[in-house]
């Protein structure tokens, strides 16, 4: 990310202002987000957590303009995403990197071609420059030697790393992660989180992670947003969730963080 962008940019990268979203036909509507408002700070990692069907992935798709809200504003650096036309939306998306739940790698392309795709399509770089850049990224993410493999030949963890490599090629200002550890074993999950944390601190992008992997994902969170039944609550860290007085938050914490919740008070603080 160029330094000038960081220096001149506001502290808030993304803002949801009274956003509602429902699905289904007029005769059978399903309200997923109910006038929710929150902000995502620049250069930090924000985790959006909640149970299944609470609108976590919908939130990401709204940020990207892949879905439109029924009402409300979604501001990225002050630009209202739903008001953009197709061309402006494509331009805005060049500032995002996205790691999808299933990695969304192109089945018919090799690992190298997958990572090179955004460079070939979106930049004027020569093939030699692209090759050098992709090989450096592969080395950085411990994927050297796998460049000629197809996605079907990779393990779940490797697919995530290839997905991350592809998402980072255009040096995005904001990287969105949609359930990045789904289908991974606990050891691989921890490794992937460490990798995310390392890359975020190294490159300084704004990370937004949608996950139901609780409390594991909270280890790398600078801010936690909890979605529950269309409502939203924002917390600084996991201790704020544990000490919340709201009944549904306490219920959520007991259900998802039973071990953490049962610890003596002094241990929770560490």
């Amino acid at each position, binding site marked *: 990310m160029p330094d000038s962008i960081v220096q001149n940019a506001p502290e808030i990268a993304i803002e949801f202002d009274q956003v509602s979203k429902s699905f289904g036909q007029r005769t059978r509507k399903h309200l997923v987000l109910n006038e929710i408002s929150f902000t995502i700070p620049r250069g930090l990692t924000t985790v959006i957590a909640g149970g299944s069907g609470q609108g976590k992935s919908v939130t990401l798709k709204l940020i990207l303009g892949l879905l439109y809200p029924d009402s409300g504003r979604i501001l990225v650096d002050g630009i209202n995403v739903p008001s953009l036309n197709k061309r402006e939306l494509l331009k805005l998306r060049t500032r995002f990197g996205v790691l999808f739940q299933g990695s969304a790698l192109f*089945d018919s392309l090799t690992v190298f071609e997958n990572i090179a795709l955004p460079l070939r399509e979106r930049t004027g770089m020569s093939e030699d420059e692209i090759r050098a850049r992709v090989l450096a990224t592969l080395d950085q993410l411990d994927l050297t030697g796998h460049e000629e493999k197809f996605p079907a030949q990779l393990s779940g963890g490797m697919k995530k790393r290839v997905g991350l490599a592809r998402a980072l090629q255009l040096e995005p200002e904001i990287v969105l992660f949609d359930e990045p550890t789904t289908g991974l074993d606990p050891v691989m999950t921890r490794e992937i989180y460490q990798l995310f944390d390392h890359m975020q601190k190294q490159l300084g992008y704004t990370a937004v992670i949608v996950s139901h992997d609780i409390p594991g994902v909270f280890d790398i969170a600078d801010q936690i947003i909890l979605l529950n039944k269309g409502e939203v609550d924002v917390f600084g860290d996991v201790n704020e969730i544990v000490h919340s007085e709201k009944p549904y938050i306490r219920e959520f914490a007991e259900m998802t963080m039973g071990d953490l919740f049962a610890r003596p008070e002094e241990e929770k603080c560490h």
Partner: protein
Amino acid sequence: MAETTILEEESSAFIRPFVFLGDQFLYIVTDLGRMGIFLFSSLVGIFRHPFRFRELIKQLNFIGAGSLTVIFFTALSSGMVLGLQGYYSLHKFGAEGMLGSAVSLTLIMELGPILTALMVTGRAGSAMCAEIGIMRISEQIDALECMAIDPFRYLISPKFLAVLISVPLLTAVFDVVGIFGGYLAGVGLMGVNSGSFLSGMQQSVTNHDIRLGVIKSFAFALLLVWICSGRGYFVQQIRGAGFGAESVSKVTTQAVVLSSISVLIFDYLLTAVLL
């Protein structure tokens, strides 16, 4: 999460059928609208820079060259059947000399464009629909959009162009092989005079007939690639298709059926208008 069921809670038994009909009507209008925008975006994507020449060659190889065998055998058998049936009918009136004319006109104006379109729909259209559908449900198309890569220019338009080039050429191959099949059956098996078969064909086939066949093959190509790729692209928005792999299989079947029926209906309409 609030769930409202207007149909069940608010509608009386009298209003319910109208709500259902209105709902279906809105769905059809919405579907037609998005398919119209899809067609426009796909055609515009053909002219967008940078043009994906390698992808076009790959698609031409799959859709065009890959369909040659099935087109060859379909054309040969259709032509031979036409030759035999034509001979049987014309022989009753002592008009075997008209066999060349009957076989060639039937193939050039009707059977060539129709059977080529149906064969390409079954072979390449279904594959196209399934491929795009799988890319949609596995978020690969979303990934393209998120990388600010226009999915039409990158993915759909090369298929459109390849089908628009391949189908008329395959139709030409079908016509030639079909006429050869008719010649084999009529002249080789049934003993029709070779000279009268060929001269009958030369005298009766006009530029207008060939133009009609070419127009039909272009129209059918556009129909089949539009419906097959469009259904795959909107796999998640099609009512009653279900989810995941099931939705792709159902929508692929639906796309093949819909495009085959559309080809047959448009054949009648084009013949009525252009003949």
